[in-house]
């Protein structure tokens, strides 16, 4: 972990836009779903008249965007260093290979988590403040923030798990493209489940998301140990 600050700063320079992607996506879809819910009087629209529904759906869209964008960044900043000639350059550094790998994963995780968290949180503050005047959705403030915190926990955990799993697939396949494609596939697979479970059984979804993150961490540890014994190209 001695190299954390260096890796963190190097990655942060190239991943600063995650917070903007998270903020704008969350903002746009919070207002979009709220407006649709306001004018949709059918039964299906009832989902969009509650805070929990709006926050969960917009959070899911943000999760998809951040996951794919995060995977694109990770493919350049991590996968690229462990495939092809990049592997040679990384392995020539006079430091423990696995500890550098873990440090890079942790730096990536901190950046994605903090930027997505902040982006989504600020978007929700903006939405909630606007809602006081626009009255797009009616409900208690407490309900809103409970739904918001639950959704934040779920989408941040899921995004991170998707990005890291995509990185591991990219490393396994020795391909940056495989990283991005994997993230798209994961997003398609989990987005519906995340949206539905976040609304109906949020606590169960939180447990699932954190469990997935723990499994991802375990896979990362296996990859780190393997890197110690891997040959370069």
């Amino acid at each position, binding site marked *: 972990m001695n*190299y954390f600050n*260096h890796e963190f700063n*190097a990655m942060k320079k190239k991943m600063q836009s995650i917070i903007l992607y998270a903020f704008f996506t969350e903002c746009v879809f919070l207002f979009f779903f709220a407006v649709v819910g306001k004018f949709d009087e059918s039964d299906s629209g009832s989902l969009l008249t509650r805070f929990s529904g709006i926050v969960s759906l917009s959070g899911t869209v943000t999760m998809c965007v951040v996951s794919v964008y995060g995977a694109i960044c990770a493919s350049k900043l991590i996968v*690229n260093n462990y495939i*092809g*000639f*990049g592997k*040679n*350059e990384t*392995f*020539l*550094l*006079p*430091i*423990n*290979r696995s500890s550098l790998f873990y440090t890079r994963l942790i730096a990536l995780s901190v950046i994605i988590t903090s930027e997505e968290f902040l982006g989504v949180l600020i978007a929700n503050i903006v939405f909630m403040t606007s809602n006081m005047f626009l009255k797009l959705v009616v409900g208690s403030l407490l309900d809103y923030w409970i739904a918001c915190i639950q959704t934040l926990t779920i989408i941040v955990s899921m995004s991170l798990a998707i990005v890291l799993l995509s990185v591991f697939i990219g490393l396994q396949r020795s391909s940056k493209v495989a990283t991005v494609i994997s993230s798209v596939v994961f997003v398609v697979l989990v987005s519906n489940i995340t949206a539905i479970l976040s609304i109906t059984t949020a606590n169960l979804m939180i447990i699932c998301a954190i469990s997935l993150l723990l499994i991802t961490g375990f896979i990362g540890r296996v990859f780190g140990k393997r890197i*110690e*014994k891997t*040959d*370069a190209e």
Partner: protein
Amino acid sequence: MEQLRLQNLKKSINGDLIINIEDIVINEPGIYGIIGPNGAGKTTLLKCICGLLRPDEGEIYIEETPLSPDTRSRILKNIGSVFAQSEFLLNRSASEVLEEHYYYYALTPPQSWDNLLSKVHLQISYKMKLGAMSLGMRQKFLLAVALSHHPKILILDEPFNGLDVDTVESITKTLINFARTNIVIVTSHVFEDLGNMVSSIAVMNKGYIGGFQKPYQINGKFSDGIRKIYNDQIKNLDEPF
């Protein structure tokens, strides 16, 4: 003290035996040239010495310490290297590469990189990306990076490929100066490049390596002497045992 020893070294890739070396020892400072045809195993050998590839059998000792995952990072601090494939670095600027190098080698970055770059007779903007540099500029720059942490062993894989005469001369001067107190191992398949600089030369073919021997002149040219050594050794290495 033995600076470098390769003992019973064997390395196969995809079932093909790429390296099969009995015993090679380097003690004295100097420039050690390894010549051989394409596919002889020269680059693979250099990668093994740098810990990039793990030998299937045998040991590599650097300053009498066996190279292993536990000792690798300590040993790498004393090795500088430039490998032929530097495509990975093309998107990075000179200052980015230098800053990262200095950070990981625990060196204090200087106020200006000019001193370092002047050692290889290079004047560039630090913001210049490696991809925007000419081949010669890039080779000089990578050599400067490899020398920056004052390694005891410098490993160069085909450093003169595609370079003009002036650049070859410039790099040669730098290497001769460095090799007064350190070891340089350089591979090539061009005799003329190594002719005026190597203190010892060995031929490598099909994974086998002949012993290092001092080059001599024929018709006043070291390159012709090296050609003779090559022709003599390559026959034995075709069917060594």
